[in-house]
């Protein structure tokens, strides 16, 4: 069967708790569809996106993948939201020989699931250390560090490992490690432990709501030192939670609106025009995921018209092409190693600056 | 005027017809007995009058008003009280709370009535703070009757009041029935102790398999061959 219209699958969490992150990815992907098709799609032919909700669990992700692969007949999939879901659903695509680009999966081991699995999201081990170095630049007197992490969240636990290692590598003292759950709201216990440890740097790995509350409560209860937030806090979703108290939180990013590439500046400009705010990282990564697929398809199409392909062959060819290319995305220039791990040169460290209670921005730190 | 008029009443439990085309009346100030074998439909009739069951056909009029469709709590407010089969005391409330709840529809203080009940049933007075669920069977029966009286009903429905009571208390109950009746309370009585009941009542209806078989003056029926044989063990 030949491929008439090119459909790219997007399987992210549109419902459940995870939708908070998923909805930014949906925005990013939809934006990509509009923007890229507006610029000619695949060498003049528009492509389509098919969305399937993964919910927040593994079975949901598998179902979404199955639907995309057989019903929507997609050429490749951008998704899922969580690494834990990826461990369940990516093998499905791998066996069906459908290329997958993880838009936000940062856990260890994702590209290793198989030949068809790659990601645009740099793993924590690469991103996280930058924040600590930056904090030391801001305040060289830092000695004692407290690390807090959401213990029921897969990526937060792996991120904290990296953070803790970095702390040691930088010759700092790890005074206390506190755990919490992403569903927790009250952190008085953790905060008082931090305060008692008299630290001058706090590093948090969690998600937006719990992370935001933690920041807020740290400040309210009198913590004055620097705070580093992990990948989960890298979203403006955190702003309403800690409001003015978010000010000053340092976050290592795989994406920054301030990134200077032309690709990014166009992206940011258009995005701002449409949504009246800076694109968040998850939106940018989802955008990048779609963009990589589209550009790989363009490259293929130039060699051999896509509508002459068999779907199965196209998927295989696409996968090869994805891994071979180099892409100018809002994340900067990225490429992939042979396993499918993203090769990204630039990472960023930003500091939150709140304009008022609701609005703020990530200010890029040099 | 008849205080209670039942016309052509039929009540079903799913497919089972428990009462079929029953008509009976209870005049104001009367004591009327309803007898019949186990499963005849006596309890079903009382529950239809107190509005716990919805009849499939027929009408129930109380003091001239059609109450066939009013909810059970409304029936109580109109002046119908029931001492139900199986006692149905509120097991987790104290004896006193049960009695006070019996007077739920009344306004003002019910103290005097409480003391009256404790006087009639000294055992309840001794146990006023005991949870009703831990009372002995007979004690619960006393409580159920006393609770029904607490609402000062116009019509009192008693479903086998003597059940589980010691002979002395049975006598007490029938004394109360006479007394209440003398005070003008109308009573519809279901009783297995047919002789006692008939002696205490003006008229008697006999129910068989959900239908009325015969009825008449209690004093006459007590000597009726058929009744004697079937219900009085004569």
């Amino acid at each position, binding site marked *: 069967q030949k491929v008439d219209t090119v459909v790219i699958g997007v399987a992210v969490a549109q419902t459940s708790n995870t939708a908070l992150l998923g909805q930014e990815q949906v925005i990013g992907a939809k934006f990509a569809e509009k923007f890229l098709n507006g610029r000619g799609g695949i060498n003049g032919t528009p492509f389509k996106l098919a969305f399937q909700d993964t919910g927040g*669990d593994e079975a949901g992700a598998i179902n979404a993948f*199955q639907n995309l692969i057989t019903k929507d007949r997609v050429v490749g999939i951008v998704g899922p939201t969580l690494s834990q879901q990826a*461990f369940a659903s990516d093998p499905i695509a791998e066996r069906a020989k459908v290329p997958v680009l993880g838009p936000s999966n940062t856990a260890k081991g994702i590209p290793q699931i198989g030949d068809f699995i790659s990601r645009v999201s740099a793993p924590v081990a690469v991103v996280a250390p930058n924040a600590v170095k930056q904090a030391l630049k801001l305040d060289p007197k830092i000695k004692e560090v407290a690390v807090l992490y959401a213990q029921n969240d897969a990526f937060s*636990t792996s991120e904290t490992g990296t953070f803790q290692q970095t702390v040691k590598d930088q010759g700092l003292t790890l005074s206390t490690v506190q755990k919490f759950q992403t569903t927790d709201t009250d952190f008085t216990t953790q905060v008082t432990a931090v305060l008692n440890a008299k630290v001058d740097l706090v590093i948090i790995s969690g998600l937006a709501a719990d992370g935001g509350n933690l920041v807020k409560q740290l400040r309210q209860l009198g913590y004055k030192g620097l705070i580093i937030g992990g990948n989960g806090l890298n979203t403006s979703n955190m702003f309403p939670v800690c409001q003015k108290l978010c000010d000053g939180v340092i976050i290592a990013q795989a994406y920054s609106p301030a990134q200077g590439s032309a690709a990014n500046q166009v992206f940011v400009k258009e995005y701002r025009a449409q949504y009246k705010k800076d694109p968040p990282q998850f939106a940018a990564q989802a955008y990048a995921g779609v963009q990589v697929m589209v550009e790989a398809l363009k490259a293929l199409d130039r060699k051999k018209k896509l509508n002459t392909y068999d779907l199965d062959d196209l998927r295989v060819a696409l996968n090869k092409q994805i891994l071979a290319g180099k892409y100018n995305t809002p994340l900067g220039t990225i490429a992939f190693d042979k396993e499918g791990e993203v090769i990204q040169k630039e990472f960023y460290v930003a500091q939150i600056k709140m304009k008022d209670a609701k609005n703020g921005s990530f200010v890029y730190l040099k | 005027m008849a205080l209670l008029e039942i016309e052509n009443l039929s009540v079903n439990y799913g497919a089972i017809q428990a009462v079929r085309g029953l008509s009976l009346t209870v005049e104001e100030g009367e004591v009327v007995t309803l007898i019949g074998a186990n499963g005849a439909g006596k309890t079903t009739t009382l529950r239809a009058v107190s509005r716990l069951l919805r009849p499939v056909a027929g009408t129930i009029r109380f003091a001239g008003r059609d109450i066939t469709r009013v909810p059970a709590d409304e029936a109580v407010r109109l002046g119908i009280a029931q001492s139900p089969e199986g006692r149905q005391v509120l097991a987790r409330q104290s004896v006193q709370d049960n009695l006070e709840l019996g007077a739920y529809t009344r306004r003002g203080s019910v103290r005097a009535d409480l003391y009256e009940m404790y006087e009639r049933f000294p055992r309840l007075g001794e146990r006023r703070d005991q949870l009703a669920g831990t009372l002995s069977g007979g004690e619960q029966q006393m409580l159920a009757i006393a609770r029904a009286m607490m609402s000062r009903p116009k019509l009192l429905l008693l479903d086998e009041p003597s059940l589980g009571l010691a002979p002395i208390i049975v006598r007490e109950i029938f004394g109360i029935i006479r007394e209440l009746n003398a005070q003008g309370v109308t009573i519809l009585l279901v009783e297995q102790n047919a002789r006692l009941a008939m002696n205490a009542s003006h008229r008697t209806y006999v129910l068989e398999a959900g239908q009325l078989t015969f009825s008449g003056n209690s004093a006459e029926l007590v000597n009726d061959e058929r009744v004697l044989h079937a219900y009085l063990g004569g």
Partner: protein
Amino acid sequence: MNDFLQTYGFLIATMMQAGLLGLSLYFPLQAGQLSLASPGFYSVGGYAAAILLTNPAFAGLRDTLGNGVFPLTWLAGAVLGGLLGVIVGVPALRLRGIYLALATIAFVEILRVVALNLTVTGGAVGIFGIPQAFGFQDRWQYIFLFLPLLLLTMLFARQLERSRVGRALRAIREDELAADAMGVPPTQYKVLAFVIGAVLAGLVGAMSAPFLNTWNAKQGTFDASITILAAVLIGGSRNVWGPVVGGALLAAVPEVLRFLTDWRLVINGLVLVVASLYLPQGIVGALERLGRPRPPQRPAPGPVSAAEVKS
């Protein structure tokens, strides 16, 4: 056909799996025990399988057994489930109703937290890259595992109901005290029913780990407990078919409603409300009501064989 199986095979297998979990809750329910511990046993069974199938410590075992390792994982899941069932069941079954339900949920939660903190379980990330049972390529092939298990379990349940033990369970459900007074030892039978459920859930967990490719602490949660209970109630808790139909339905509805995109879960919620309003005895209960049950038949009189008198 192949496309259908590719798309819906996973769902169909999930429906069977949900039915099986429903049944694991149905057994204790037969004895009136509202236990929500199934996801706990399920999770443990899954971990057992996942560890046996991926942990380097068992590499030798896997090599020697080949595909034989899979039945071994089932056995491990079932045995572990059963053992835990006894350990939790004996103290917990003194509780009744919601109290029991919560004690069993407490057990599920404790297990979840423990799983998050251990290294063998892979902590919060869990275990991934679980090899496929018998080299299955597609999800739908797991029907070959779940379907026979489902049929066997239903047969088991039906036979159980018709037996002396089944009657004892029902008696306890109806009135524990009266059952006791009539010679039925409640504790013993409650534990039995609980353990049967636990063994089943552990077994299903062991089969499910390869099925889901990955296993983590989210597999056994409060939400799962409630979903399974809802499935049993929607299906009907008085007949073996109830949990099966309910489980299958609740697994299928959100998937079938995919075409509604954003409204899918809103409608899913409405389906739950409407179903519970209009089918107070569950789906199977409602179907049963249509066909009036046959009155029991008096056994034919006749000479009694020696075997029968002996008793």
